[in-house]
């Protein structure tokens, strides 16, 4: 019984770490993979998702609906940011990095001024999952499964829609895509908005598990960064593989050394991995 219990404990923990890493990283990875830019305000996009989810939930919308509202609000915000800021810097990668960093400072402080230090929390739904002496929050399992669902959804968007086809074309060869009539500017705009929606949904999903503060984004940004570094430019396989393999490291590390140990292990693993796989998991699966 004890063996089954500890295996269950491991699997549930793995699922929840995998979910957190994948959700935190997916929006960033979509934008990075297709457009080649890193959104340094990514943590604040997650924060906006969490806050708007909380507002919608407070207005009486059920949690699932509230999370959708959070995703769409963040997506709309991302669209505005792309039009005002990002599109002026498509060919200046480092400038997009620093400009979005400036944006992150503004957003954190603006939310602090508008809403104060903390914000309305959402109770954790679904209760607990019980097996013999072992119990876990059902919601954390749902989190991991939702992450899998979002991967499937993103896969569908990139393979089944015209936008997805054009986005992949723009990623592989921008000039060729343009000469074949793809409006890459529009594709990038939609990509940034799509990545923002994913970040917003992630924020909404994280909202019940954390205290909503203006700086909550920095709680997730390390997870997002290491997932993208280990994953590389391949949005789906890279991010999925990175979240899974980092989860496999973080789970035993946090069981042995606590939460902090788990997070330090994430960073150390990432630093070790880049020595052998500078392009991350994408470098293994993509042959060119």
């Amino acid at each position, binding site marked *: 019984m004890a063996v089954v219990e500890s295996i269950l404990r491991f699997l549930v923990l793995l699922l929840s770490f995998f979910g957190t890493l994948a959700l935190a990283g997916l929006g960033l990875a979509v934008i*990075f993979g297709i457009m*080649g830019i*890193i959104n340094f305000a990514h*943590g604040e996009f997650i924060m906006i998702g969490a806050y708007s989810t909380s507002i919608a939930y407070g207005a009486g919308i059920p949690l699932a609906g509230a999370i959708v509202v959070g995703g769409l609000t963040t997506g709309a915000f991302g669209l505005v940011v792309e039009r005002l*800021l990002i599109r*002026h*810097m498509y*060919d*200046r*990668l*480092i*400038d997009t*990095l*620093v*400009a979005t*960093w*400036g*944006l*992150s*400072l*503004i957003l*954190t*402080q*603006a939310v*602090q*001024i508008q809403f104060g230090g903390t914000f309305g929390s959402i109770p954790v739904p679904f209760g607990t999952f019980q097996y013999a002496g072992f119990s876990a929050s059902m919601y954390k399992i749902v989190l991991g499964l939702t992450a899998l669902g979002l991967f499937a959804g993103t896969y569908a968007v990139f393979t089944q829609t015209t936008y997805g086809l054009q986005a992949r074309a723009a990623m592989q060869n921008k000039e060729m895509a343009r000469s074949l009539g793809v409006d890459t500017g529009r594709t990038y705009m939609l990509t940034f908005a799509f990545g923002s929606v994913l970040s917003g949904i992630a924020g909404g999903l994280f909202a019940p598990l954390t205290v909503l503060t203006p*700086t909550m984004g*920095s709680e997730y*940004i*390390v997870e997002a*960064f*290491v997932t*993208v*570094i280990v994953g590389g430019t391949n949005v789906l396989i890279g991010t999925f593989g990175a979240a899974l393999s980092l989860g496999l490291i973080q789970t035993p590390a946090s069981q042995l050394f606590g939460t*902090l140990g788990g*997070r*330090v292990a994430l*960073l150390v693993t*990432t*630093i*070790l991995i*880049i*020595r*052998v*796989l*500078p392009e991350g998991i994408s470098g293994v699966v993509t042959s060119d």
Partner: protein
Amino acid sequence: MTDAGGPGAIARLRDLLEGQNTLGNSTRFWYGFLVVVGFMFVYPFLTNPFVLKVNTDYFVWMILALSLAVVWGYTGIFNFGQTAFFGLGAYTFGIVGITLIEVTGGTNVAILAAVVVTVLASALLGYFMFYGRIRGLYVAILTLAVALTGNLILVRTTNTTIGAAELGGNNGVTGIPSLTLGGGPLSVPLGITAQYYLVALLLVATYLGLRILLNSYYGYVLLAIREDEDRTRMLGYDVRKLKLIAFSLTAGLAGFAGALHAAWGNFIDPTVMGLTAASVPIIWVTVGGRDTLIGPLVAAYALQSISTKLSTVGSGYTNIFLGAVFVLVVLFFPDGLIPAIVARWRERTGDGHDIDRSNTTEAEA
């Protein structure tokens, strides 16, 4: 400084300090420089100790700005976690300083330890990054992730003691000794004015030293790496090693600044490695102009003074101001404000062509 020795000595010194890699190669610039430095050194007679104390810290930040300008602006390594090394230097100085002050009576060992520890730590990280040949953007997010994880670790150090120092988690390390001069039993702790002079002297020395470095052969190789890494490698340079050296030495300089900062405030806490703190040096260098030394210096001083004023009038808008300046400069003056002003001024006056900007291309990868 330049008026020591005959005209031959001045010419030789100017030869070392000047070149197309730094702004300000005219005689007029050096007169201006001497006036500013002269003012820095008579300033203590014109103002009160509080203002001196505040300015001492600005000078420390300016050293940090210089370290980032060299590694990011000149070498093209996107070290966005320079504050990790600044903080590591500060914590090392605090821990060693508190532990040894009773034994040795001075802080020389603590300063040395701060530099050595940051150089070693950054060399370890740099080894994995540069010998793994990861690309530019990855360096940016990885170094920032290191700083943020450092912050996480430091926050959880409540009730942790290293040597005689209590790390204190979020509350930080208190009771860090001030800088001392001399060694062993002859060590003298420095007062506010003496510390001001020492840090001012260190700042001027760092600036001139980095100018000599950047205009030397090694400086040209660093620029070559920034402009075209592959081509530099083809020409026979060991780019990985050179990047590693540049990365760890500038991190050591940041660690040194961190030690000065800890000694200045007798205090250090984990916010120094947080996300906001990490962005601040990036803002100075971006706003000032990342391929100059003088730009980040001016921007660091100006933006720190403005931030201090904004926070003393009790507004919560400091970060909004900094962020807005940051975004606007990136949008409209991608090369930074100081180079833009210099270019405008030269256009108008039509002289002082000491840098041929048309030969250099953008640093972007």
